[in-house]
């Protein structure tokens, strides 16, 4: 699964960051038919998680009502420097994990 993540590389402590993620996935709802009339089986990403400092920040649980290539925009409050973990889990249980390092800078200079 191809994924794209947009997150600032640096932030000040206490800043509320906007994070955007996109996963390339058809998200077949299981309600549509193909050109010859056969039902296209359901194939969706069930869950997305974002973890920071070993803590769950945001979690999304999708049904077939989420559009193809699921896009999400959510927030995170910057605290300590460290990795932000992004995890997508599809209905077969396959995990796609991504890391982004978030650096905390002082606003002194």
């Amino acid at each position, binding site marked *: 699964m191809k994924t794209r993540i947009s997150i600032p590389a640096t932030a000040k402590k206490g800043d*509320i*960051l906007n994070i955007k993620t996109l996963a390339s996935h058809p998200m077949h*709802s299981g*309600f*549509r*038919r193909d050109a010859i009339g056969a039902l296209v089986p359901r194939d969706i990403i069930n869950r997305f998680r974002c973890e*920071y*400092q070993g*803590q*769950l*920040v*945001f*979690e*999304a*649980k*999708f*049904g*077939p*009502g*989420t*559009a*193809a290539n*699921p*896009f*999400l*925009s*959510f*927030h*995170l*409050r910057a*605290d300590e420097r460290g990795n932000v973990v992004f995890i997508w889990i599809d209905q077969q249980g396959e995990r796609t994990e991504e890391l982004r390092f978030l650096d905390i800078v002082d606003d002194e200079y």
Partner: protein
Amino acid sequence: MKRRTLLLGAATGLALQLAPHVYAKRLKATMALFYGEETITVGRVHLKTPPLAENGNSVSLVVDVESPMTENDYVREIRIFADNNPVPMLASYQFSPAAGKAGVATRIRLSNSQTITAVARLNDGTLWSGSSETIVTLAACVDPLL
């Protein structure tokens, strides 16, 4: 295309649009299914969807909940409902105070024109809701009887 076929198509389309009171009943039933006898207060939840969507396969949705997002007062969960969809609960989002802000933007599928409702549960257990209406010109599921 024959005129008869056209007329038949138009009639089917009309029949699929639910009358408002029928819709309200369905929404109530769905809410009862997920939240039982709990009270849901309208307010604090701001849901935005486009008034007119040309393609039901991808409709942008933005939801924000008024909350300080502190350890003592935060939004635990937001659920999105679209009653005319074959699966009425589109998604659920869990938050922790570390998010700083209880809001999410995504893209959803709509099977036809309808009211979309977002219900937020705060850490104190109270439920809040907000809704938005979208008219869909091309449905996400071509066969709506499924």
